[in-house]
């Protein structure tokens, strides 16, 4: 049983979305540079409790000019990671806007995680404290993680948490299976199916 989920990375430009994506999906032997250059969409396959889960990671454009258009990216997302830079107050404010928009525009309940990124920078530069971030995340029902794109050990728990929650929420069913079931066919009463009389074109 393979389950595929769509996970969007949201956050202002330069908060480190792409670096998180790259670090998390880095393969041991990455010889082909074409693989490295393409850092806007990546898939990661996880094995959780004997189930294979594919996370499709969408690195979205964070520039100001696209804010009003970004709905196309996240409207059918199964999960969202909201990234801010701990040294940049604006990026944290922006995350709060994203959360509001997600709640307003996404059907169903996407799994939310908030990533306080660039924690590797010296503490003296931090503008947003762990407590403030954590408090906010709790308020909006998101899980809070402190991350550094330089250290994959700070990223693994976050994505694992999301994957487990997705698995729980969807009960192992394929996310796209759900999409499909919302568009079921009108099926009329069973009448005898037409007999396939020979004629298989052979």
């Amino acid at each position, binding site marked *: 049983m393979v389950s*595929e989920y*769509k996970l969007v*990375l949201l956050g202002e*430009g*330069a908060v480190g*979305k*792409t670096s998180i*994506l*790259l670090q998390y999906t880095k393969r041991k032997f990455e010889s*082909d*540079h*074409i*693989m*490295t*250059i*393409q*850092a*806007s*969409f*990546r*898939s990661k396959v996880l094995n959780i409790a004997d189930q294979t889960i594919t996370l*499709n990671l*969408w*690195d*979205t*454009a*964070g*520039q100001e*000019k*696209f804010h009003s*258009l*970004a709905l*196309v*990216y996240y409207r*059918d997302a199964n999960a969202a990671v909201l990234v801010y830079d701990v040294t940049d107050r604006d990026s944290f404010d922006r995350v709060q806007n994203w959360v509001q928009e997600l709640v307003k525009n996404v059907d169903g309940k996407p799994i939310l995680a908030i990533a306080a990124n660039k924690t590797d920078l010296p503490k003296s530069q931090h503008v947003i404290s762990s407590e403030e971030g954590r408090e906010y995340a709790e308020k909006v029902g998101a899980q809070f993680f402190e991350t550094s794109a330089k250290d994959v050990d700070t990223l693994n728990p976050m994505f694992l948490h999301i994957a487990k929650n997705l698995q729980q929420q969807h009960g192992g069913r394929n*996310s*796209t299976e759900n*999409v*499909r079931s919302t*568009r*079921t*066919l*009108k*099926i*009329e*009463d*069973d*009448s*005898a*199916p*037409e*007999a*396939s*009389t*020979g*004629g*298989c*074109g*052979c």
Partner: protein
Amino acid sequence: MSLQGSLAAHSMAADTPVSVSYETITLMKRNSTRLHIDVKRNTAGLLAKGVGVISESIFSSQYLFGNQDRSFSLAQRILLDTGSSSSRILENYVTRFNTGRDIHVYQFIVSLRHYMLEKIPELVGFPPTELDFAIEATVFPLIHKKAMEYAEEDNKEEDAQLIAQCERYSALTQSQLRIDPELQITDRVPFHRAIATLKSIIFSQMPSRKMQIILSAAQMIYTEIAERNPNAIVGGDQFVDIWIYVVLKARIPSLLTILNFISNFANPELLHGQSGYYFTSVQLAANYIKNLTDSDIPVTNADCECEHPFLVADPTRLLPLIQRCPQLHIGSPFLLAGYAPFVLEDALLDTSRVPTVVLREDANAETEVHPLSVDGDAPQALKELLVSWFTVQTRVMTPLLVRTPGETALAGRIQLLSPDHEEYAHALLPNETLPQAILRVQTLNDGRWMGALTLDDPADSPGPIPSGVAIKRFHLAMQALDAYSPILPAHDHVTGVTLRGCRRLAQILDEIDDNSVRVVGRDLPVIRRMMLQAEHLISLLKRSAELLGAAFPDPVTEESEVAALSVEVRRLQKKLGLAQDGRLGVATISSVLFNARLVKLATCVPAEVHPLKGPPVPPPSRKVVVENNRL
């Protein structure tokens, strides 16, 4: 409720009149052969272009035709066999769709797949996605027209808006769209492969094919960047800026309808994965372009930049434009001290580019320049056009404000070659007969001094255009055609350019045989690419005429032009020893390389050469002191 039940619903509800059914069958038969070939060609082409290297590509996850030849044709044969029950179900569904009774194509495909897997023993073990693809390939040509009507419903007006916006902002540069300078392409037509690929989206009739095309256009971007900057990383932020550029330049008519067609009828699984990401990015780009306003564009503050005249060293090339636009004025020339004229080879080869000559700082030199001014109330588009002409490739040219003491009227912008590009200066050119002595074609952004002529080889006197330049010029023309074809240029323009270029190439190659002219080794890959492009263009022309019918901007009135072109291309390929698949044989390359030791000038001067002549009546020149006020 079983799947069989749903199938029964499809087949039972079909109270099809016999005539409709008959037409459908004929159409199915006619389409089947062509489609199969198309699907194969398309897939092979995309795989060859390196789509396969990206692991999550839809080829590996969804539509990898491992055993495609056999299985695909088997499935299609069953579907097209009018005696089979599957075929009848399909046919009934087509009627239901075309009469608006059931538009859920994807559900139909899935149920028919289940039905076929269950009922037809030959299909046991057949990968479901391949079967889906075969069904899709059979059903969509039959319902395409109606499906497009559905998709068009609310989009017609918006499509007109979008294409108007694309026209309006067609001159935007990479910098103006804020593409990361590290990722900008310095070709004459940046990202032309991606643009050309995306343009071909109008040709396919299946939603999944259209998505493949989008994906493949995105891959072209990565490939084009990787070729130039192997260490680049393109994340979501960077990609979208480039993608907007590509979508803008592709100017696809009815793009919103096509996007709507895909989201209505494509396999929803595809919309979640990698191809979905790029599809969504097209939606974003289209919406962005639709809402684009002048205030969104940085740098081009056209009004401000047009305040001062542009100081041009070669006004003759501007004459056609000035004649058309009464708001443009060219003043009397004056001498600009401290600058020497410098010609950009790229601009020289590209006759559509207006400013040819840029300036370069040189304390001992002086250059005659003419102020080109534009009226304040001139249309915004004209100002933008001018500014983009003068700032296009700003990495080569630096706008500079030149002031004259007491004479503010002479303050103006010049196009200054930035020092880091001087390394490209190789050959010196004569002032009078500018294009006649270009040697050693280098890069597209190559630049050369204008000044006294010195040649490497005294035997190579200035004269006709060297074959290398002719080849390069043809290549540029082809590259432009590839990016703008097949919708924009008139059909006879495409054939005309291609035909002229092929004949010139043939002439050059005839001369190789005579051993009188050698072609430089590096021209061979260029020639090879051009031949492939020529072939590609011919097929696109034929196909666009066929598919678009009356909508084709310039319907094929003279079939003979295209036919003549095909003949010429085939003759050339034969001459070059191009194998059936269009690849240049290794043996041919080495034998030509062996002969190619010297570059000798060919004997043909193409008609488009613009000799640089001075202004008609040179009034007395005045000296100007320059303050280096860089803007």
